[in-house]
């Protein structure tokens, strides 16, 4: 791997900061990550979208050089995590799935203490902590104990903490899971700013809206395997139609309705509570449904989303 990096800076700029081939992690019999290939370019915002247990966190931990891979190759910042863990971790920022702030310290001390782990001198830690508190909109909470923060604030503090070393890559494992919609939007706004500044982001999520908002490119993972890869728009174009018509006939009638309407759409999915008809023009299909005398209790035409891509690829919903 190392020789790839020998070359002019111009060539370096296009070299991936993360490159995995057949990356695998097993726990005994269980295959958590079953041979995935991925590449992340500098400045890119890359996503892993998948349901619970897909292997997202396991992949993040291997990239973050805290979990040894079972097989395959992995290069992060041009280095092998097996031999250069501390080097890789020095230049990563990690936002774990579960917050692990020091709840007994103040907000500001959390940043300073963490900065020290990177060998940053105390004065520089303090200066940077203040900048990051401004960035995370937590300046007025600087002297408050972490215990007193809301969930969204804790998450922002965790992101600020992950930035203390000015990382080359920021890794976010489900950054907004468990937050209310407003807190999620505040957080996304902060992540956008980082993206604009050219920070490389790697995000896992099981929210399709989050993936659409944050990711330039993503992989859909399920059962430790990559099902598809592309930009959100590409994935939707490839695996779904432009629009979706959602109909509810009542749970007992949905399946029969789907049979009756099968010829109207490019594809039909029957979920427990509704029927999804995939078509370029949802309104037109709805008109035809009505003209057949079928009368859904509710109907909705919407644009296709990554949720539909996931459903198509796996036959299951992302969020149960």
């Amino acid at each position, binding site marked *: 791997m190392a020789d790839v990096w020998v070359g002019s800076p111009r060539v370096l700029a296009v070299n991936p900061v993360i490159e995995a081939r057949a990356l695998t992690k097993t726990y005994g019999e269980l295959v958590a990550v079953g041979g995935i290939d991925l590449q992340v370019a*500098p400045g890119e915002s890359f996503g892993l979208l998948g349901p619970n247990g897909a292997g997202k966190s396991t992949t993040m931990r291997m990239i973050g050089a805290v979990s040894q891979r079972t097989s395959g190759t992995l290069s992060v910042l041009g280095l092998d995590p097996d031999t250069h863990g*501390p080097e890789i*971790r020095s230049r990563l920022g990690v936002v774990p799935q579960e917050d692990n702030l020091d709840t007994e310290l103040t907000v500001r001390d959390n940043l300073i203490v963490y900065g020290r782990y990177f060998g940053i001198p105390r004065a520089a830690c303090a200066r940077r902590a203040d900048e990051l508190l401004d960035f995370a909109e937590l300046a007025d909470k600087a002297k408050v104990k972490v215990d007193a923060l809301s969930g969204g604030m804790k998450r922002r503090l965790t992101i600020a903490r992950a930035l203390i070393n000015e990382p080359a890559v920021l890794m976010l494992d489900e950054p907004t899971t468990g937050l209310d919609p407003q807190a999620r939007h505040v957080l996304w706004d902060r992540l956008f700013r980082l993206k604009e500044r050219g920070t490389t982001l790697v995000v896992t999520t099981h929210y399709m809206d989050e993936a659409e908002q944050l990711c330039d490119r993503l992989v859909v993972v399920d059962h430790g395997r990559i099902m598809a890869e592309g930009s959100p728009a590409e994935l939707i174009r490839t695996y779904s139609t432009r629009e979706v018509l959602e109909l509810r006939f009542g749970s007992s009638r949905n399946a029969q309705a789907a049979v009756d309407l099968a010829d109207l759409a490019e594809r039909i999915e029957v979920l427990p509570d509704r029927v999804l008809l995939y078509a370029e023009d949802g309104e037109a299909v709805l008109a035809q449904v009505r003209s057949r005398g079928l009368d859904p209790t509710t109907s909705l035409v919407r644009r296709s989303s990554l949720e539909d891509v996931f459903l198509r690829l796996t036959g299951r919903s992302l969020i149960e």
Partner: protein
Amino acid sequence: MSTEQAPATTGEGSVRDEALAAAVRPRRFGAWYVAEHRLRSMRAYGGTIVIGGIGQPLLYLLGIGLGLAAFLDQPVASGAHGPVSYLWFVAPALMASAAIGVALDEFTYAVLEGFKWRRLFWAMNASPVSPDQIATGLVIAVVGRMGFVVVAYGVLVVLFGATGSVLGALLTPVVAVLGGLAFGLPLLAYSASIKEETGQFAVVQRFIFTPLFLFSGTFYPLATLPIWLQPIGWVSPVWHAAEVGRALSYGSPPGAWPMWAHLLVLVAMAAGGWVVGRRVFVRRLR
């Protein structure tokens, strides 16, 4: 913040070279960063540490020196030059117990807190610091707290005239810390292996620490116990550390174990605990 954030790839060095350079300090000093964090956390209960560290020896030395010792009309123990005062006899054992008390405080709940309740070790683990440095850093911080406690003890021991040798009083705290680690490092290894807290630490306190304290020749010579109880003392860091402290204070009576034998046991217990403990940390965090 990062208006000056470094781009992923700079003109001069690659991200790879940056990473190689950035890890130099954490690789060298990582354990000290962990210790710094722990000591900062201890400040939250710094008052308890200071008051306990000074108050406990003060109470023991006053209570035993002025109270209990006055009732004893015949000497309990002898040194190299015949019978010694009761206070001389108990002081080294009390000091070692104080160091072990710190270990009991710091190597139990605090360890589970790091792994499980507040997950602090996982945060450290994602930084350049490595699992063995996390374990080392914890130990450094605890040795710091033990050091404070035993030095406070030592000062009071000298003030109370509770030692036969001032030079011995200077060395006894070092032995007490070794005793603290002989008990503490195996305990650290055990605590780090606990996945679910179901009262194990209360068991350690009641069925390990308390018997070791009571049957380790702390308040009377081990030899006065029936022979079948004496093995408790032989495996007790309290007894070994106390005996070394006594030898330093007033010399060993004829027939006592040589000092090096006690030290060997203490070092073996501490080293064994350390080797296993580090391994448990690495296993759990990787």
